[in-house]
């Protein structure tokens, strides 16, 4: 991935190399065919993949191999996925993404309460899987790099709150503001790199969650849509500042909880 000459910040080179060269994902899924398909999909995108059929095999592999992220199916025989998630979170800070065919809101909330970092309902596309794994890994790396900063799935800026697990944005008056997937990912890219000028290409790279999709809308349109939703009436302090000739910069300070 060649960086464009538009970069002005010396730190921007760090932006794109935050992930380990080949992250190792452990897929805990009892359906063998599904395991194979997940493995192929992730391997095609540069991941190392190991598979476990149940909780027992999961513990076994976690002990033996350097795993960076656990992909956990909730519908497992024997000890259920939710219990496994709770136990795993109790023992380690390893990133967990839960996957299930039961797409109810309750399951999602419950999983996140039990310590999962993200939730992916089946069926999911290969691109979505890769993008979510990357996003969770980036986040955990950021947290690891700042061990003193409070961990938590809520990010606050200028009165706004982002719930990283539920992928929600809440306004200063407490209203949920709906964002499209691309808008959310763009905002995520901004909050992960505040006070830095990000070029269009960088934003594109960071926020591209649907790698297989043809990305019709330019970054400008995305940022403009995002602004319409989060920025107050014209005149007040902007949240995203346009830097002429370079790109955009996220202005407010960020706190976590």
């Amino acid at each position, binding site marked *: 991935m060649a960086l464009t000459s538009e970069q002005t910040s010396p730190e921007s080179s760090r932006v794109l190399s935050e992930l380990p060269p080949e992250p190792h994902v452990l897929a805990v899924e009892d359906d063998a*065919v599904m395991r194979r398909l997940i493995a192929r999909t992730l391997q095609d995108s540069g991941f190392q993949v190991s598979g476990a059929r149940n909780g027992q095999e999961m513990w076994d592999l976690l002990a033996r191999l350097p795993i960076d992220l656990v992909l956990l199916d909730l519908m497992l025989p024997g000890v259920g996925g939710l219990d496994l998630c709770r136990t795993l979170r109790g023992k380690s800070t390893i990133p967990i993404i839960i996957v299930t065919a039961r797409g109810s809101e309750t399951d999602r909330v419950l999983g996140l309460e039990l310590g999962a970092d993200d939730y992916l309902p089946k069926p999911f596309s290969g691109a979505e899987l890769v993008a979510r794994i990357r996003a969770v890994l980036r986040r955990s790396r950021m947290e690891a790099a700042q061990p003193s900063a409070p961990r938590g799935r809520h990010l606050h800026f200028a009165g706004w709150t982002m719930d990283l697990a539920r992928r929600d944005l809440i306004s200063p008056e407490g209203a949920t503001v709906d964002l499209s997937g691309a808008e959310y990912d763009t905002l995520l890219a901004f909050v992960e790199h505040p006070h830095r000028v990000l070029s269009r290409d960088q934003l594109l790279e960071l926020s591209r969650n649907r790698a297989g999709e043809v990305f019709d809308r330019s970054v400008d349109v995305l940022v403009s849509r995002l602004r319409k939703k989060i920025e107050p009436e014209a005149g007040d302090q902007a949240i995203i500042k346009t830097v002429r000739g370079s790109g955009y910069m996220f202005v407010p300070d960020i706190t976590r909880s």
Partner: protein
Amino acid sequence: MTLRPSWPTSLAGRTLLLLLVTALVIYAGAVLAYRVIATDSAAEARTAQLAGRLETAAHEIAALGPSARGAAARSLSSPSFRVTWSDAPLVDDASAGDAELLALCQQLRALVAGVGAHTIHLRWDEHAVGGSRSVLAGEVEIADGSYVVFSAAMLPTALPAVQGVLIAVSLGFAAIIAVALFLLYGINAPLRRLALAADHYARDQPIVLPERGPREVVQAERAFNAMQRRIQRLIADRTQALAAVSHDLRTPIARMRLRCDLLADMGLKAEIEPDLAEMEAMIETTLAYLRGDEDNEAPRLTDLIALLTTLVDAAVDAGHAASLSGPRHCVLMLRPVSVKRAFANLINNAVTHGGCARVVVDREPDAVRVTIDDDGPGIPDAEIGRVFEPFHRLDAARGRGTGGTGLGLTIARQVFAREDGLLVLSNRSEGGLRAAVTLPLGARGAC
């Protein structure tokens, strides 16, 4: 222009009518019988009286000598009963052709002692005696062959006071009718309860019948309650089966989706993609519809404009003509995931069947109105009521490519009803369909 009286249709009405007719028939029969019996007994009394007088007269006259008989006869007479003596028959017998006279003859033979086989001549005499209408003239032979001739006025029998009887009978029937009405009420009330419960079923909260009262009522109510429970169970089983199938389909579809994404052949991928998406969409809508009331999403304060903007932007990105206009700021308490799905269905319908979607948000007193207009053919007036039925699709929409399960509007209406809102479809005069959603502002809403 005759008015045909219509038969009563209610149970009470019919029973009452039947009772009244029966009462009248019995009533009339009783009065008739009473009259006949009373008349007969009155006639008998009259005959007995006549016989008594005749006997006295015959006995007295027979005991006297012929010269004294005339005077004795005169002294035995009264204005209504004239007696004379004759030694030869004077009265022509007319009893041969008159059944009544024959009968009278029989009775007199039986009642007057000493007549035995002696001759009795009787006839009716029209000549008025003392003002009475009908006179019986006759003669009775006595022992020595002479005749006691009499002329008796047959006064019309006066029936004893009938009014008293009539009143008594009327009161009797009134009492019977009152009892009948009371009994009818006992039957009507449970019948009405049954009808109400049946009407309520599947529309409002099911009514459980009390199973009290006469045995047949208890049986009927028990059977009805059992049937309600059976039907509930049947529906629950079917719903669960449908949900299970839809849910289970997700696993093979999940596998197919990953395989599709791994395909190198872009052409093939492009062909399979839409079908997969359609299958996923059908399952999602079916499950959303089935979960409908049980979905425990909690209402949250939500920016309605942001929600609609996302949907409209997505439609524009997909190449459709869609627009949004309205206030910049509008927040409401609602369930964002469900409401977004509902609006998505409406906007999707507009762009798919109507070619475009113009979304307008208006503030109303205590409510917000979201209108989605399109320029399509609208919905035929005959179908407008039916489009909300689950799995109902307009014939025009059944072709492949327009997709849809027929649940979009059903779910949308369900969702908005849960928010205490309203969804109304109408055909615009300029052509095209208008979907108008009204949502209450509530205590925390601000627009």
